[in-house]
């Protein structure tokens, strides 16, 4: 760190002596700070300050009674966190249930999207006629606005006038189910979210595949390695940097997903579709318990932060030993 900074400084010193005529209107040291100032202002105003206020609210008993004079809400310390983490209590056990649902949902959606995206990317990673057309077609679900995708699926998943059950009865499945109630609601969400997010994995992985030099495959092929062997020995290791970013980004999006359950089920989702973002939304804006809602969001943030940190630590350690 300090060594690299020193070399940068000497580089800069060399550069400065090289270019003589410079109008010193702004101090050179101030320039980068001027460039980042607008970004810092907006980040502080929209991200950092509200986060701090959110943490403060989580320490208040800001319930329905104080909603109109919320500055007078009593300070309750960590009581909201106690309620949220007391898995024996009603609020705590509901939160824990919602957490488990969200974990299962995230693993399934991220996993399925990766497998589908990887498969489609491998199918299109070659030179054949119509390749560009297929690529464009596969990107359409991702280009559609997310809420439109969910609206469309909510129509397709209708019991009697929906396309999914029409397809099932065309395949001679008897008793087509209600999709949007009970445990089926969970699978409806998984299908909907996967349909929209696999093209993003596909886009990323296809770009990654195309950056792998083809002579690596030619060499492996000459040595008689099977396609599957080549995939394991060349493709997957080369895609590691792409996968690290892709999986982290899709994990964060899916874990924080609000659109899918909200557009499918509104403010009263069935228990199997009670994702965390919607759970906290309902606790805050429907049940008017903002203190508890904020405590839950802070816990969610801490969880995401730890997972991301551990994930990056593991990856970066692995990356360093590879290099």
């Amino acid at each position: 760190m300090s060594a690299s900074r020193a070399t940068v400084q000497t580089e800069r010193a060399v550069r400065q002596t090289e270019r003589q005529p410079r109008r010193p209107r702004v101090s050179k040291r101030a320039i980068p700070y001027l460039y980042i100032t607008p970004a810092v202002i907006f980040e502080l105003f929209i991200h950092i300050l509200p986060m701090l206020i959110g943490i403060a609210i989580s320490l208040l008993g800001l319930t329905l009674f104080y909603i109109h004079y919320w500055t007078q809400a009593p300070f309750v310390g960590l009581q909201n966190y106690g309620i949220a983490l007391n898995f024996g209590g009603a609020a705590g056990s509901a939160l824990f249930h919602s957490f488990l649902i969200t974990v299962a949902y995230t693993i399934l959606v991220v996993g399925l999207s990766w497998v589908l995206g990887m498969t489609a990317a491998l199918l299109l990673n070659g030179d054949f006629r119509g390749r560009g057309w297929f690529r464009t077609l596969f990107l359409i679900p991702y280009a559609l606005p997310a809420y439109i995708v969910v609206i469309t699926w909510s129509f397709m998943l209708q019991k009697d006038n929906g396309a999914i059950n029409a397809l099932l009865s065309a395949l001679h499945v008897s008793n087509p189910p209600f999709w949007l109630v009970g445990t089926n609601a969970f699978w409806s969400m998984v299908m909907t979210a996967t349909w929209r997010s696999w093209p993003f994995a596909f886009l990323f992985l296809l770009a990654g595949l195309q950056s792998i030099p083809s002579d690596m495959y030619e060499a492996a092929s000459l040595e008689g390695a099977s396609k599957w062997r080549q995939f394991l020995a060349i493709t997957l290791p080369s895609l590691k940097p792409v996968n690290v970013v892709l999986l982290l980004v899709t994990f964060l999006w899916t874990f924080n997903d609000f659109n899918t359950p909200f557009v499918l089920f509104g403010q009263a989702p069935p228990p199997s579709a009670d994702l965390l973002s919607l759970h906290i939304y309902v606790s805050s804006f429907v049940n008017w318990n903002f203190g508890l809602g904020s405590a839950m969001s802070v816990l969610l943030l801490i969880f995401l932060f730890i997972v991301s940190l551990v994930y990056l630590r593991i990856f970066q350690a692995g990356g360093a030993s590879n290099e």
Partner: protein
Amino acid sequence: MSEYQVSQAKSQVIARSRVNRQAGRLRESQVYAVLRVVGLIFFTFITLFPLYTIVTTAIKPLQDVQSTFHWIPSRITFAPFGDIWQTVPLARYFLNSIIISGAATLISVAIAILAGYALSRYRFTGRRVFSLVVLSTQMFPGILFLLPLFIIFINIQQTIGVQLYGSYLGLIITYLTFSLPVAIWMLSGYFDSLPLGLEEAASIDGASSLGTLMRIIIPLSLPGIIAVAIYSFMTAWNELLFASILTSAATRTLSVGLQGYATQSNVYWNQLMAASIVVSIPIVIAFLALQKYMVQGLTSGAVK
């Protein structure tokens, strides 16, 4: 032409298999060719199935939509495409979404260019902290700062009289900040790929830092800037959670407004699908037309 290419490819495969002296090689490649066709049919089907449903539902009368689903519309009507403008003030929502997303995109891109340039070309104290904090805001759950932002907006209105809640301005500054982290990350990656010599030549000519950025770096970075602009526009155009709380009837955006086709008594599925087509077409066409920039920009940081 294509047959020639195919036969050429085949002969290459054959030649290679001879070199390998592996009898199974040719059969293996034929198996993969069949698998590719099967795979492409599968993906085409799962992609087209919902799209086909949207289009055919939009041209059915309401009565047909509310009864058993039929693959081929028995009666075709384009009335839903006219009705959508009356059932809800769709034109108003459309205009609101365009104003908010457009303004958020312009400002976000401008801010991200400056910050990305600073990260790419300057080594300054606090650089690491800045980039880490900005990137980590990407993992903030929106639900955490929805209420605080609402409270801040209300307080600003009461103290200095600037209306942020229920106004264009409030959503514009919110959405532009949402897209900033990825925009800065993508652009600084893009700037990293441009050779340093460009600026050295310019600064020998006496150009200022900002002048170099405007006249040399920005024109060369147009693909990256276009990618960031698409990303920012889509972020704003797709947002629902904050729009549902921070807009009023006059500033409602499409994401919230489309729920108006589902009333207590009735869901106008045919109009909902017609409106979905109208709302999606501009953004889908823009995305698909500019997809190669999106691929370059999104992956420039990760693929290197």
